[in-house]
């Protein structure tokens, strides 16, 4: 996760100027911060340390496969197979959340 690596990756599409690399760095860190704060709030809602640990494990996993952002870009492509895959995951995940989790935070 250093500057040269990003620049090399971006130079493949000839976008390797300073301002673009900076923007991509900002995106990478935004993702990590989402994981950190997301795991904190999930842990607080469920009131279990287990969930927080699970969130931290996700963070550790994402750090181990860094840089995350190019993989993220690939998953967000507009090929129909990727989109239908994520739609399928989404349907399963919200079905799981709405039917099977039962908690109170109001």
């Amino acid at each position, binding site marked *: 996760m250093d500057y040269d690596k990003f620049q090399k990756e971006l130079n493949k599409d000839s976008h390797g100027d300073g301002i673009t690399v900076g923007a991509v760095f900002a995106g990478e860190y935004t993702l990590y911060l989402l994981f950190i704060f997301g795991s904190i709030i999930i842990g607080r809602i469920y009131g279990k340390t287990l969930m927080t640990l699970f969130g931290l494990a996700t963070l550790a996993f994402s750090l181990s496969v860094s840089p995350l952002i190019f993989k993220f870009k690939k998953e967000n492509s507009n090929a129909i197979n990727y989109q239908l*895959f994520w739609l*399928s*995951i989404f*349907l*399963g*995940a919200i*079905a*799981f959340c709405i*039917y099977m989790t039962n908690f109170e935070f109001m």
Partner: protein
Amino acid sequence: MNSKRDLVAGISFFVFGASILYSLSNMHVNPGVNLVYLTHYIIPNYVCSVIFGWRAYDTLGECLVLVVAVMVSWIIFGKSLYDNTYLKELFKAPESDDYITLHGWGEYTPIIKFLAFPASVFMVALGIVTILGGHITPGGGFQGGALIASALILSVVAFGSKSPLWFDHKYLEKLEAIGALTYLLLGVVGMFIGGYYLFIFTSVGNLPIFPAPKEIVTAGIIPYLNIAVGLKVLAGLSTAAFLLSCEKVIIERIEKSEEILNK
């Protein structure tokens, strides 16, 4: 990698499907507002009275979906595009053998021709009866319109571009607009007579709006709404089927829009 993704997608698909089936197997129907519909009635055909009475505004929306879909089909095949170079490239390219158009569509045997034309005439007649009797018998504007459109499609399939039953596409476009406008404007008239949009008025002054036997005098504007929907559905479905099968008009359309763009 790919099989892993399939596995994950399969599992989540399973969870979703299981929850849908769980909900469906626990269905208990509450009759609710249906009892209101079944005890108060406008005309003997209850489905028709729900479609054009209680939920007439939904039917208006349904009409508009079809109108918009036909418009969008026209756009897809080159009407008033901002830039039609892509379509021009596609349609000006020489045809390959496997592509079927209305012209290259050989003709069917005499038996089919002999049967298709009378059958389609009968279907048109049946469609007209279904539209006009929609307020007392099963059926209505949509079913009748779909029957007439399928008669047209049957005839076109059997005879190709020399079909004896043929509507010009400009005529169909106007027919559809007239159907939708009639529906919209009848609603506005109801608003001025009864105070609510799509109010079912049975008489203007002392003149009954729909002369009918005593029991169905409450039909009011419903037969007219039926006719409007029938016109719209017949025009819409035939235009859609026609656009999907015929290239000649599309190429003409592209050339015309080219003229407008180059002016």
